[in-house]
């Protein structure tokens, strides 16, 4: 909230939950959305510049950091940064080894990317809610939501990626017939119950990406809303609620990254398993 500007709480919250949207507006053509109504008028042909920018930034930070450490990695005594990276790496490697019971060299890197990327995006949330919007407002950018995981597009984008892989491996490992059999003959192996099985299994399969995306988005978005609400308090009272909530969120941030990663690996493991 800009100093000296008395803004209505509802407007302030709205403002904070609005992405920087660039898209094709029916009246204005390709332009930046000035408010939520304009953004929703743009429909599907719009893109959240802040979500894309921050998430790709975090992704490159992850790649750059890990690549740098990986290339400089010595077999001798590791430095501080190398130790942190190695601990993360071994954590994810151990996780995939204990959860993923098949052979696939892609799962390790996939889990590492998911975990570290989501962790980095989530961690942006610890930065006070007004810092970046305030700075960007000074240079004329109205909206700036810096935590990509509070945008359903980002979480659902990743979940969709994982889901496509699940489908790909289901077809690749079991074949179309095997996949169809698995969908129709489980859990009740009887011809009369095939429709019932099919309904059950297809729903269970389709619910995977939603479960992944909604869980992460819900946690992050709710946390963000509460941070914004706390920021509405008088300045001397903010820290009273803000500090405990932020400390609690260190846990949430890590936990959600962990859950997303583990569930992705579990889904992919199920896709590899023949029955």
């Amino acid at each position, binding site marked *: 909230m800009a100093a000296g500007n008395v803004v209505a709480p509802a407007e302030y919250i709205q403002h904070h939950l609005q992405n920087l949207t660039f898209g094709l507006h029916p009246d204005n053509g390709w332009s930046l959305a000035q408010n939520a109504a304009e953004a929703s008028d743009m429909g599907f042909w719009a893109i959240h510049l802040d979500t894309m920018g921050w998430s790709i930034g975090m992704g490159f930070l992850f790649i750059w950091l*890990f690549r740098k450490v990986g290339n400089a990695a010595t077999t001798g005594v590791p430095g501080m940064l190398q130790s942190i990276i190695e601990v993360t790496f071994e954590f994810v490697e151990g996780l995939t080894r204990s959860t993923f019971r098949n052979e696939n060299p*892609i799962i390790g890197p996939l889990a590492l990317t998911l975990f570290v990327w989501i962790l980095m995006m989530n961690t942006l949330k610890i930065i006070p809610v007004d810092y970046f919007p305030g700075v960007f407002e000074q240079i004329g950018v109205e909206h700036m939501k810096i935590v990509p995981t509070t945008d359903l597009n980002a979480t659902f*984008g990743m979940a969709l990626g994982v889901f496509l892989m699940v489908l790909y491996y289901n077809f690749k490992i079991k074949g179309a017939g095997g996949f169809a059999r698995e969908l129709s003959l489980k859990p009740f192996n009887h011809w009369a119950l095939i429709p019932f099985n099919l309904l059950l299994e297809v729903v269970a399969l389709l619910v995977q990406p939603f479960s992944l995306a909604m869980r992460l988005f819900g946690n992050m978005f709710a946390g963000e809303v509460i941070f914004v609400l706390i920021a509405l308090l008088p300045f001397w009272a903010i820290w009273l609620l803000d500090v405990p909530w932020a400390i609690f969120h260190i846990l949430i941030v890590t936990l959600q990254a962990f859950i997303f990663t583990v569930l992705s690996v579990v889904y992919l493991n199920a896709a590899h398993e023949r029955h």
Partner: protein
Amino acid sequence: MNINMTLIGQTIAFAIFVWFCIKYVWPPISNALHERQKKIADGLDAASRASRDLEMAQEQVEQSLRESKEQASQLLEQANNRSAQIVEDAREQARAEGERLISGARAAIDQDMQRAREELRSQVAHLSVLGAERVLEGAVDEKAHRKLLDELAAEL
């Protein structure tokens, strides 16, 4: 909250990052870690081997120490024996030398005594002849009585 192209953008970004990770991030870290694991295992192996070697070496040292101690005591005993013998020998030699000296001296004394007695005997003979001459006023022919005088001297 709108679902829009960001969704597709995010999926593409995600795919690219995963591909990057598979290609460029995972292998070097994985290699480094496995190499280090191997190195540590080797190190531990070497350490246990070294400790075994050390134990063996210590045993050897103890044994050789024991042996050399034994040898030293043997040598010491030998030396003691030898020195006692040397002392004994020296004592023996000294006694022999002493005896030889004593006997030599004794022989010399005997010889001297013999010579003195001889001289005395001749002197006595002479004096006796001289005395008899005086008594008999030269009536005694020394040549004539020489045999008698010699006999007298031998009796002394």
